[in-house]
């Protein structure tokens, strides 16, 4: 593994013409031994990375007898698709999915609108104390979640909101330091001339934000929408803390409690896991571009 850390260590001593990743593209050329090595390594690695997912699907289709069998089989001898039907009906997954979608909806709307709004303020309006507040914003990113988690719980319990979705929804509309930071960097990069004209015509910031900046930042906002959706979909801690009625269970909590009811029936548990993970996988393949856009934005925020 270590070999690949330093590109072409093996090759560097030789006097042969050096072609490596860092050279400018030169159209068709012969594959160097190192490229072949990297290709082989990457192929083997991607098999390793995909096997767990294959294992999940394959286990979800097996009979309990086949799961217990040693050595385990990679391809089920018989495909028990009815495992999925059984799982879906064994616990109220329809309800869980509906609840989760609702929370994800609020998370997406809140995060996209509010973070963009706040980021615009930090990026494009000059006001006294801006530097101070911005450094406070950066500092809050260092606070571990658990420091605020317990007193927040106390707060929401004093407001009699424990057992409702409010503690999960309200924070989504109060901005997230990281997304604000990310979007602010993005907004700083939008050429001033684009907003200047509107300003001379007397447009206020609200107008400029809604009509000029938002349309220009669609890819960044799409990335945030996807991260927010993913975050809400996978949130375990929040619902675990604030939701106790089964009617309000989300997929994550529902799946966790499903384990208690099926015990060691791993075919059903894996079917349940596939059900919960599949939407994220589909989303990933549909919007891969924006996932990557989001990571690029993150990379752009450092230093």
């Amino acid at each position, binding site marked *: 593994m270590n070999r690949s850390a330093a590109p*072409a*260590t093996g090759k*560097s001593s030789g006097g042969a013409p*050096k072609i490596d*990743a*860092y*050279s400018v593209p030169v159209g068709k050329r012969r594959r160097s031994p190192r*490229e072949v090595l*990297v*290709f082989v390594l990457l192929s083997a690695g*991607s098999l390793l*990375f995909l*096997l*767990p*997912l294959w*294992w999940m699907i394959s286990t979800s289709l097996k009979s309990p007898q086949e799961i*217990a069998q040693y*050595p*385990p089989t990679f391809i089920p001898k018989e495909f028990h698709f009815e495992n999925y039907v059984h799982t879906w009906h064994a616990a109220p997954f329809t309800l869980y999915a509906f609840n989760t979608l609702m929370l994800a909806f609020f998370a997406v709307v809140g995060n996209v609108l509010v973070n963009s709004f706040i980021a615009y*303020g930090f990026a494009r*309006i000059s*006001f006294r104390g*801006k530097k101070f*507040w911005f450094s406070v*914003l950066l500092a*809050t990113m*260092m606070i*571990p979640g*658990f*420091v*605020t988690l*317990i007193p*927040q*719980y*106390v707060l929401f319990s004093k407001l009699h909101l424990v057992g409702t979705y409010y503690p999960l929804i309200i*924070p989504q*509309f*109060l*901005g997230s330091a990281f997304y*604000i930071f990310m979007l602010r960097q993005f907004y700083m990069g939008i050429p*001033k001339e684009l907003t*200047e004209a509107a*300003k001379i015509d007397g447009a*206020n*910031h609200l107008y400029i*934000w809604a009509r000029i900046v938002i349309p220009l930042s669609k890819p960044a906002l799409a990335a945030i929408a996807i991260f927010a959706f*993913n975050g809400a979909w996978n*949130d375990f*801690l929040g619902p675990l*803390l604030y939701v106790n009625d089964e009617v309000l269970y989300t997929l994550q909590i529902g799946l*966790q409690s499903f384990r208690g009811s099926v015990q060691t029936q791993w075919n059903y548990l*894996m079917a349940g896991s596939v059900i919960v993970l599949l939407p*994220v*996988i589909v989303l990933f393949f549909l919007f891969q571009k924006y*996932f990557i856009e989001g990571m*690029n934005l*993150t*990379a752009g925020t*450092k*230093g």
Partner: protein
Amino acid sequence: MKTTAETLKPGASGPQKKKRSRLARREELQGYLFILPWLIGLFGITLFPMLFSLYGSFTNYDVTSRMDFIGLGNYARMFRDDPLFWKSLYNTLFYVALMVPLTTIGSVLLALMLNERIAGMRVFRTIYYLPAVLSGVGVYFLWIQLLNPSTGLINTMLGWVGIPGPAWLSDPMWTKPAIIMMKLWSVGGGMLLYLASLQGVPSQLYESAKLDGASAFRRFWHITLPMISPVIFFDVVTSFIGGFQIFQEGYVMTDSGSGGPMGSLLFYNLYMWNQAFKLFDMGYAMAMAWVLFAIVLVLTLINLRMSKRWVYYEGGED
């Protein structure tokens, strides 16, 4: 600060001056209007709760009835009479100390390989990134299954090469490595981060280094590494802070937070959670939260300090 509208207006002077300050005030107001949601959140669900928890950490608060001031009682109990506190701290430090370097090195290596121009690169990138977007209970269940000592995938594959795999999640020695292995499955996120910054390294740098006869290894060491060091730093700091917050893995993979075999997966936050929401010993849990905050803060500051030595910022620094 002048508003842009003014600076563009020709001959802005005299009576215009008054107008400018009014405009500036309006600008000021709008600025605060825009960051208002964040300010509400900052005071409402961050600073106020934190102050409350700071005070609470000196009490025996239990949410419902008592809240007596007990001075440093919680802290004394933590450091002196609570072996589980030390155990959970040890578990967390152990995890962070292994996870951060391994995931960082793993994602840099992966990014370097995926930065090559070879066939099928897009497909490779997709495959390696996919696991990183998956998280939550489904993933933990999958890994419990993969780590099954007799019929799990991992020990089956180890068996092929003649290694008898350990009883991962039931052997206290192997529980944390098992969790770290699971984390390594999702290095794709960090990989993308590095890939983005690798592609930002100007190719002229490599060209001229090559003309000077620098070997590929030296080019990596003296060009690539310094150029991506700000991202490495960012990644290390965030995975550090994130690593200390490990909770769900311990909770889901150990039967609702029991902490696993011999408490080997009793992470700091898991122990804090149990204190707060199972025993309702809130005062103690809040004290624990502040100790964690202090630890993370100190380590982050050390990180920042050390970064001056190895992080390279283009166009000078400070």
